[in-house]
């Protein structure tokens, strides 16, 4: 049995994993990164539109700061976020942008003087301040009050991931590619590492570490149509669930992006609408202003996706052999802008649709896009229940996104969380509580259990093949656990998924080689994916309200009285076919921003009994504080700076740009 030792095992080589590895390495700890694919091919590379950070240097971002970013994030989350974490995040985001700038990300810059832009389908002239010339600029994204999304053309994720990939090489961090974590090694509520399979040779080995970090991204591929890369199967989240100890949070909170192309499901960035693009129906009518007077195409994603679906249900969709769709029109932006600032979009349309988006409208419809749910952690990124296990990035429920994350807040989360969590991991590794006293017998047990599972698949001859079960799961998820949900559909989804899970325990494969074997891989991942699907479906069935991306047609109101909480799922035992579901309440009394109207979507919710009281309390507290000192006002309501690693506590400077 091969055993590899390191201080910090990082599972996942996307933005979150790489930034974590660099962080602990800088603190002097050894680390190894594992990834299914070369790190720079991780899904983070596909992020197009940009990263939110409140620099406030572009004219349309003037006056932006952490407070506004915080408010937008909490409203976006439909009050599901942990507000302290949202504060930690918005505080560090400008620092993350600047760190990445130092590492070479060629962020687009402010160019002084007048320039044309399209806002609300009209050409306007924006005058950029000379004082801001050459500083990092930003574009508009949904659900934000300021233009805050920093970008490099529409290849932001690529530029960020390559800068971080190169930093990890500069720091001499080993990144082991084509390696898949199959199970976590744990005992007595403490995680010690993982059993890992080499995807080329099929060999299993044990990686033991003081701290294990899961940064494996989202689980979008449990849905039939997703913008996610084909490797976003959520296996990292699933191995945490399978410990029976680690908790997952808010698995039913699944985001649909309004504009993926039909039929391929490939994303066209929110930057299309941020830059002025509009949505049209079968008659060519621009319909979003009919529903959302103020934010129009730029309400938050959950709202726009629902409005689009609602509109299509009225028979106003374009019908095609691949199902109904609507149009995204960016021809209004002009050829030069489209070909320069929306280049990936241009390429995607050219190669996958055979058209030029500067000339013709793009066929789009809402498509699964982002997993708000994930491994539940505290503000330090450590699992709430399994010591020594950390998680960050899309795989985690840290929880700054609550029930809906804002565009541009996700790549921002990956690097900000990597910065913060790596410091706490390093602190943990520096203490004696991270010492490992583990018998090799236990390690052997874990490796042998995985080996036996694989051998079982290779040797059984009368089982089912994985692919039919998998397609059925994907269909159930998109049809019954999608944008619009109802109790009866969710009920039948849970029931059928449970049956699929049972069937998935009796699979066999045609191709019996133990090494590289795509069929085997599909077979052992399937039960893991089904467990995640069950967590999402069950969470959705039980949550009899609508919040953020979770929308129940039979319970259309947000219900703060009964549901201001986080869904927590755990997996009770290897034989179980359903997760255990508990709830973690979110306290109104601690909130800086108590629940209210988001500013878009329907103005209709059931109040929490303590909401009014907290609003009054806040008024009282603020009376005693200098109205011009925004830091003091914030600190009086919900102190958070003490929660941050010391090096990230100082305030971020910005130029005050006047317009």
């Amino acid at each position: 049995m091969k055993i590899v030792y390191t201080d910090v095992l990082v599972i996942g080589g996307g933005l979150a994993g790489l930034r974590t590895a660099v962080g602990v390495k800088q603190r002097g700890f050894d680390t190894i990164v594992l990834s299914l694919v070369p790190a720079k091919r991780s899904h983070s590379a596909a992020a197009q539109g940009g990263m939110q950070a409140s620099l406030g240097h572009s004219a349309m971002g003037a006056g932006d700061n952490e407070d506004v970013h915080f408010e937008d994030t909490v409203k976006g989350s439909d009050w599901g976020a942990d507000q302290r974490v949202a504060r930690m995040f918005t505080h560090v985001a400008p620092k993350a942008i600047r760190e990445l700038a130092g590492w070479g990300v060629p962020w687009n810059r402010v160019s002084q003087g007048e320039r044309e832009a399209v806002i609300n389908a009209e050409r306007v002239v924006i005058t950029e301040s000379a004082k801001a010339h050459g500083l990092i600029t930003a574009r508009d994204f949904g659900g934000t009050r300021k233009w805050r999304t920093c970008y490099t053309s529409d290849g932001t994720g690529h530029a960020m991931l390559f800068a971080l990939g190169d930093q990890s090489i500069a720091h001499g961090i080993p990144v082991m590619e084509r390696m898949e974590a199959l199970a976590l090694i744990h005992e007595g509520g403490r995680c010690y590492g993982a059993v890992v399979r080499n995807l080329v040779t099929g060999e299993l080995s044990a990686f033991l570490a003081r701290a294990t970090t899961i940064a494996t991204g989202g689980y979008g591929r449990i849905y039939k149509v997703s913008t996610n890369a084909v490797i976003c199967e959520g296996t990292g989240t699933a191995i945490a669930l399978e410990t029976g100890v680690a908790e997952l949070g808010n698995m039913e909170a699944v985001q649909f992006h309004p504009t993926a192309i039909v039929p391929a499901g490939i994303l066209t960035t929110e930057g299309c609408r941020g830059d002025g693009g509009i949505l049209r129906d079968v008659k060519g009518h621009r319909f979003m202003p009919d529903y959302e007077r103020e934010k129009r195409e730029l309400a938050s994603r959950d709202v726009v996706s629902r409005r689009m679906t609602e509109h299509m249900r009225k028979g106003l969709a374009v019908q095609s052999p691949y199902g109904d769709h609507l149009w995204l029109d960016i021809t209004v932006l002009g050829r030069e802008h489209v070909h320069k600032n929306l280049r990936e979009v241009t390429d995607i349309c050219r190669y996958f649709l055979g058209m030029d988006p500067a000339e013709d409208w793009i066929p789009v419809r809402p498509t699964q896009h982002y997993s708000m749910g994930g491994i539940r952690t505290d503000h330090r990124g450590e699992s709430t229940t399994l010591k020594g296990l950390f998680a960050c990035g899309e795989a985690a429920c840290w929880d700054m996104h609550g029930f809906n994350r804002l565009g541009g807040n996700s790549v921002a989360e990956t690097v900000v969380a990597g910065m913060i969590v790596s410091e706490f991991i390093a602190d943990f590794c520096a203490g004696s509580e991270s010492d490992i006293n583990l018998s090799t017998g236990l390690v052997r047990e874990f490796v042998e259990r995985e080996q036996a599972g694989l051998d079982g698949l290779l040797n059984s001859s009368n089982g089912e093949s994985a692919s039919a079960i998998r397609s059925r799961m994907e269909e159930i998820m998109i049809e019954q656990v999608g944008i619009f949900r109802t109790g009866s559909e969710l009920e039948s989804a849970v029931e059928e998924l449970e049956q699929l899970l049972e069937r998935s325990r009796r699979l066999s494969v045609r191709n019996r080689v133990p090494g590289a074997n795509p069929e085997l891989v599909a077979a052992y991942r399937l039960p893991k994916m089904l467990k995640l699907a069950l967590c999402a479906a069950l969470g959705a069935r039980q949550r009899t309200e609508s919040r953020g991306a979770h929308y129940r047609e039979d319970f259309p109101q947000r219900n703060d009285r009964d549901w201001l909480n986080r869904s927590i799922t755990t997996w009770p035992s290897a034989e179980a076919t359903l997760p255990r579901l508990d709830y973690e309440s979110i306290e109104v009394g601690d909130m800086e921003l108590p629940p209210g109207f988001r500013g878009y979507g329907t103005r209709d919710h059931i109040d929490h009994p303590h909401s009014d009281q907290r609003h009054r309390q806040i008024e009282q507290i603020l009376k005693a504080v200098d109205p011009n000192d925004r830091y003091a006002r914030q600190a009086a309501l919900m102190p958070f700076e003490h929660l941050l690693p010391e090096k990230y506590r100082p305030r971020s400077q910005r130029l005050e740009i006047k317009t």
Partner: protein
Amino acid sequence: MSSPSPGRTLVFKILRHNPQDPTSEPHVARFELEEYEGMTLFIALNEIRERFAPDLQFDFVCRAGICGSCGMVINGRPGLACRTLTSTLAPEITLAPLPVFKLIADLSVDTGEWMRGMSERLETWIHEQTPVDLHAVEERMEPELAEAIYELDRCIECGCCIAACGTARMREDFVGAVGLNKIARFRLDPRDARDDGDFYDLIGDDDGVFGCMSLLGCHDICPKELPLQTQIAFLRRKMVRVS
């Protein structure tokens, strides 16, 4: 949407070999599929795997032409399989793995190890002059310069330029267009402290810019349409001057 003539039958000829398997010999396997509208090589290969060859190996990640995983030789020409619509090809399609890189199996090759080796040798990261103060307003940069750097930063390390390069086939350590482009990128970046003398030490030999025969297979093949021709010519002039 482009619409191919309906009902074409596509014939795929795929070069297969699994070095992990001692009994495997390189051979061409033949598969037939009915084409439908919007079919890409990503869709076709998955269908072949699903229906005929469960052990067929290939690499796709983003399936959107963004991540660089799916480089392969398509009808003799290196390219990204995921964004190749079958309607743009004749009905007989030959597929082979990218040469130069270590073969994993069938159409899957190890570009990761090759790229990391190149990155380590060329030190393809910003060599900071002074550490960034994370709390202070960032250094300014001319907007046009930032755009010019991004232009070169767009390389996705797909390896197509290497597969198309005569020198790379002959010289194991040749850094190729991908490596030379990276040097051009960091050379342009004022945040990098290195000067032409430093860059000369990295690429001023036959494994670097002087090994390039300027036949420009790379330039025509690069799926991101990077300006490889001008960048390599420019670097060569600069490096000749340093020497």
